[in-house]
Every structure is written in C-alpha cells, then in structure tokens.
C-alpha cells in the first residue's frame, strides 16, 4: 500500500521516476563544473546591483555615499548618532593618526620607507587586486615591503598594522571603491567570499548576511545592526570599545575575527584566505561607496 505523507510523495508513474533520475543525472554532471567556474563579470555586476538595490530600497532616505559611515548612517541609529557627531568635534583617532603618519615615513633598516614602497601602486580604493600571480591586500603589501627592507612583519590584527593601513588610506578618503574584477583569480576569491558571507556558522548558526542583510537596522539586544553595504569602507577604524583595552585602532580582519567570536565561531587568522576572500567580496559589493579613513566606530 502506498501511504501519502506531507513530506514524502512516492513516485507513482514511470515517467515521474524517469524525470527524477534524469534530473539527478544532469545535476551530477553539471555540479563539478559549476563548483569550479568563477562567476562571470556580468554575474558580479548583477550581484552588485541587487545587493545595493536591496539596501537602497530598505533605507530609502540613505544615499549610497552615506553608507561609508556604517551604522551611523541608518535612520534606526538616529537617537544615538548625536554621540558620534559630538565625538567627531575632537576625533579620538587624531593622536593615533599622528603616530601613524610618523610610522609611515619612518626609515626602515635598509634606508627606504613604507611611503616609497607604495609609490606606483594602485590607490587603496582598488585593493585587493591581482597582479603578477598573487592577490595583493594592503596589509600584505605592507608586510612585503617591511620584509624587503629588512624589518620584521607585523601581525594583521595589531594596532600598528591598523595605523599603517590607515596612513596609506587616509589621503584617499572620499574616493569611491573601484575594484578590478576582470581577472579569474579575483573572481574565484569573490566566489569564496560570497560563500563565506552567506553561509551560516558558529554556535549561534548565524551567517554574516543574517545580521547585516536580513536584519540590518534591527536591534540585537541593545545594539543596532549595521548594513553590510559600506562595511570595510571605514576600516581601519578607531573603536571606543577597543580603546578601553589600549589598542584602539583595528584592521578589518580584526573586526571580522571579533564578529566570528560574537556568533560563537572560531576566529581565523588575519590575512587568512577566507578573510581575504571576504574582503574581496565586500570591496566589490561596495563599488561606488566612498572610503572614509580614519573613522570612529562604537
């Protein structure tokens, strides 16, 4: 006897059975190809359009440029925004930036300095980019430069690295993000980052998107969740919470690690492949949003 249940519908006809096996066979042959192929530039452009359109229709009063301020731009944050504005009358990151610029121009053991290393490199709004067989991130390039000039590498989570990245980015503050995603490698990273962004993880089973897309602007206990659009344009940022520990400036990867820890997932190392992929994905999604470095975050 064939029993009907709400979750299982047995195959009744040969045709139906044939259809299912045909579909499975087709999926089995198509699957490996789909997993390996990088998304086309057209697909990425369509992703950008959909992603940005989602936020622009969710927060109709917030223009695209305003997303550089992170959560401070959202209407749900309006009652708290005044505190941020008052802080910017005498921005707490200023003394960090004075130290950062000194460090940026300080001579390295070989006689060169970081500023000279970055002459001829693309502007920070074009990072990460692919050139000469490898993917370049700002923190990676800084470490390469330090190595070439006989200095030790820095941890990508450290405040020192955050200050150096901020020193490189700050003159370009206000320029819009513009990533070149024509190369296969960047598109592969984009795909990996997109997967990382939308996949659930951790004890709380949250994906990045759960909070920052589906619930952007909603409250999580006492905090307003920021919108994923514009993430990374303000980093490295000066965070008040981090400043209480004495290490106030933090890189984007430090923030990623903190986010992972908050949802009960094991944080990864700075400059790990997953974080670089996520950085690529977010940078591409932010195409057209101006960067704002240094910035102040809660």
């Amino acid at each position: 006897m064939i029993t009907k249940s709400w979750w299982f519908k047995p195959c009744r006809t040969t045709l139906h059975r044939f259809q299912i096996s045909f579909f499975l066979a087709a999926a089995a042959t198509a699957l490996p190809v789909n997993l390996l192929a990088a998304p086309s530039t057209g697909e990425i452009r369509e992703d950008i359009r959909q992603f940005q359109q989602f936020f622009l229709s969710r927060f109709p009063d917030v223009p695209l440029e305003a997303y550089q301020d992170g959560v401070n731009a959202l209407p749900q944050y309006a009652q708290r925004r005044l505190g941020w504005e008052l802080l910017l009358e005498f921005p707490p990151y200023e003394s960090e930036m004075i130290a950062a610029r000194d460090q940026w121009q300080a001579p390295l053991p070989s006689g060169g300095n970081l500023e000279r290393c970055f002459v001829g490199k693309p502007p920070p709004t074009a990072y990460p980019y692919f050139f000469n067989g490898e993917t370049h991130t700002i923190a990676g390039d800084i470490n390469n430069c330090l190595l070439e000039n006989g200095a030790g590498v820095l941890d990508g989570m450290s405040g020192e690295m955050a200050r150096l990245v901020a020193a490189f980015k700050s003159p370009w503050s206000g320029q819009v993000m513009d990533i070149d995603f024509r190369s296969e490698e960047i598109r592969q990273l984009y795909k990996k980052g997109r997967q990382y962004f939308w996949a659930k993880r951790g004890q709380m089973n949250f994906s990045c998107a759960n909070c920052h897309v589906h619930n952007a602007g909603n409250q999580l206990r006492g905090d307003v969740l920021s919108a994923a659009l514009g993430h990374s344009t303000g980093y490295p940022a000066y965070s008040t919470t981090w400043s209480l520990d004495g290490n106030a400036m933090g890189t984007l990867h430090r923030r990623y690690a903190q986010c992972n820890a908050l949802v009960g997932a094991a944080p990864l190392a700075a400059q790990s492949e997953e974080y670089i992929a996520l950085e690529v994905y977010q940078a591409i999604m932010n195409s057209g949003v101006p960067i704002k470095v240094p910035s102040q975050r809660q």
Partner: protein
Amino acid sequence: MIYSTRLKVIETEPGHQLMCEIRHPMEPGGRRDKATGRLLPANYITQVVFRVNEEIRAEMLLGKYVSKNPVVGTMVSKLSGGDRIIVSWQDIAGDSGQASVRVK
C-alpha cells in the same frame, strides 16, 4: 608618567572654542586589572585650567566619572591674532601637564 596633551582652537560663533585632549587613564579606583586581577589605584584629573595670555578664563573641576582620554572644552569670547592660549591640568597622583597654542 607623562601624558600627552593636545589643544585645539576652533573659531565659531560667538567666540573661540577651546578643546583639549589629555591621554590619561582616568582610573576612578575600585576597578581591577583584567590581566592580573589587582586593584587599580585611583588616578584621575581633578583640575583643568584654560588661560589666555596668562589670565585664567575657565577653570574646570573634574570628577572620577570623566571618560578615559578625556576631552574637555569651553568657549571664550573672540580672541585676536597673537593671543597665547595655555591649558594645564593636574591629577591626584601628582602628575600635571600643559599645552599651548598661539592664535593666528
């Protein structure tokens, strides 16, 4: 301990706004060091004085519930070019500091 002090003079209406930032821990006492678990002794700024050409223009008294790395400020009537503004402070541990700016 030497804590850095920075002073900013911003021209606004109806006067000049003076703001100073002191990189000071402002420890209210009774809190514990997260790493060692030891009680941190109280150390906070009690007094900040703004002077224009040696004349006291604002004197502030701070309690222990002012934030770490405090920024305090006030406004004085319009200054003229060449005026020298000095801010000085002292804390309960006996440290003090100052910064000065000349109005352009």
